């Protein structure tokens, strides 16, 4: 078993000041275990013969001293089935770990390996008990590929509460490792530096609806393909989340642009959820993505990625949830065929997942 802990982060914890005698320590964690099977080919690690090797386990250690200072570490063990992404994931990893200084209730600073505020799901991408499906929408977030769950750097958070409204702003700077690809069967690790961006949320009075905007620019330090430039990549996400009584609505749109000029990734999803009772919930999601790639002096190609899902969730308790979900997909994310969107039509496949999530 490999264990990877980054020493600079460990120093952040060791050197963090302890100003107060009032220390609180808490441990939390979650488990997300699934069985998945596709009707043909392999899709994001889910093969035709099925796999139970889809799992996320995390343990979080939270040390708070006084009102202003805290240290948080989350260790994670993640399995992604037969996906080639698994090659870049250690058995146990430091999910995130940071020191937080809270100036007051509205202003805080986090330093270290900090969860990246990006859209609705990025910071909670593996917490099955609060997710409608086993995975967050892959068209918008990727399978832990084109973006990262964390930023190695600084996040400053500020909140305002004018009347019944709530405004939340996160500013971040730093870098991260990601894994990215041009085809479904070949992935390359990429280090991204000078990532600068923000996440802004507006919550309407009543706290039933909130609207978010995220934008960042980053600089990949290694080209993952000779046709893709290294100057910078820009990502923008618009989010909306609403709930009313037994209904839940979420939608997000992402637009990523990269070199050569004219190349982009655009995707969206709409999720409608409804709960029959305290125990049962039904979720429906429609998601679309389109990649456009310009290869200078050669061609411009584009490919569409569809994922429609229907899921039924049963909550034994709010912290123990069983999910059944069925997905109908069409696109180029088939890992054992790796179709080329320049020359080949999209591949259609269906898959299902049965998963159990628990947290404490």
């Amino acid at each position, binding site marked *: 078993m490999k264990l990877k802990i980054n020493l600079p982060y460990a120093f952040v914890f060791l050197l963090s000041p302890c100003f107060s005698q*009032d220390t*609180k320590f*808490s441990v*939390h964690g*979650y488990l997300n275990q699934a069985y998945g099977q596709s009707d043909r080919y392999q899709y994001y690690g889910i093969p035709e013969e099925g796999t139970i090797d889809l799992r996320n386990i*995390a343990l*979080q250690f*939270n040390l*708070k001293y006084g*009102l202003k200072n805290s240290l*948080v570490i*989350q260790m994670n063990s993640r399995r992604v089935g037969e996906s080639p992404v698994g090659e870049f994931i250690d058995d146990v990893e430091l999910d*995130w770990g*940071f020191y*937080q200084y809270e100036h007051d*209730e509205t202003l805080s600073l*986090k330093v270290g390996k*900090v*969860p990246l505020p990006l859209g609705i799901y990025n*910071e*909670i991408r593996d*917490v099955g*008990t*609060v997710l409608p499906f086993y995975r967050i929408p892959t068209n918008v977030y990727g399978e832990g590929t084109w973006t990262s769950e964390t930023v190695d750097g600084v996040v400053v958070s500020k*909140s305002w*509460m004018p009347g019944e409204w709530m405004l939340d702003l996160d500013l971040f700077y730093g870098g991260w490792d990601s894994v990215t690809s041009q085809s479904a069967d070949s992935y390359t690790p990429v280090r991204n530096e000078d990532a600068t961006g923000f996440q802004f949320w507006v919550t309407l009075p*009543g706290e039933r609806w909130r609207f978010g905007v995220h934008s960042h620019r980053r600089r990949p330090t290694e080209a993952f393909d000779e046709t893709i430039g290294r100057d910078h990549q820009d990502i923008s996400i618009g989010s909306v989340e609403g709930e009313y*009584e*037994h*209904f839940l609505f979420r939608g997000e749109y992402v637009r990523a642009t990269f070199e050569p000029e004219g190349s982009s990734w655009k995707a969206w999803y709409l999720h*409608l959820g*409804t*709960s*029959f009772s*305290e125990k049962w919930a*039904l979720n*429906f999601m*429609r998601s679309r993505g389109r990649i456009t790639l310009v290869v200078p002096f050669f061609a411009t190609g584009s490919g569409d990625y569809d994922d*429609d899902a*229907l899921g039924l969730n049963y*909550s034994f*308790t*709010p*912290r123990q949830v069983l999910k059944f979900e069925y997905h*109908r997909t069409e696109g180029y994310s088939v890992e054992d065929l790796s179709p080329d969107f320049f020359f080949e039509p999209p591949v259609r496949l269906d898959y299902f997942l049965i998963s159990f999530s628990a*947290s404490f």
Partner: protein
Amino acid sequence: MRKKLLRTHICAGVFSAVILPTCLSLALTRPVFAQNEPAYRIVVHPDNPITTLTKKDLKNIFLKRVVKWPDGEPIIPVDLSPDSSVRDAFSRDIHKRSPDCVNACWQRKLFSGRGVPPCTFPEESAILEFVRNHVGAIGYVSAVGDANGVKTLKVIP
């Protein structure tokens, strides 16, 4: 073209056959909660100078958006366990949500590194004991019953 049409029909079918009726039936069977006196009372340490709190104050305290009393003392909110009927009443009156919903909100905050939920106690007696022993503590217990050694606050809308 035919496949696309078929797919559209399947999606429309799922929507009209499953989602729409569910939505309508849930909307029509929406529960109505009593608007009478609250089934809970708010308790703090006897030395706490506060005598009244608004519902908005309570919401902000129990979501840890406000962390200090006016005199600078740290606020320590404590919850009853999620299956408690008193917690259910408190949650629906103050947060306008079920305890499960508030719990989901806390899980999102917790596992994104944005905060830890209040401590939870299974019994009201444990809440009262905790509040008696911690100057900054605040909790809630049922509106009836013994609450010696703590101060009950008046809740205003």
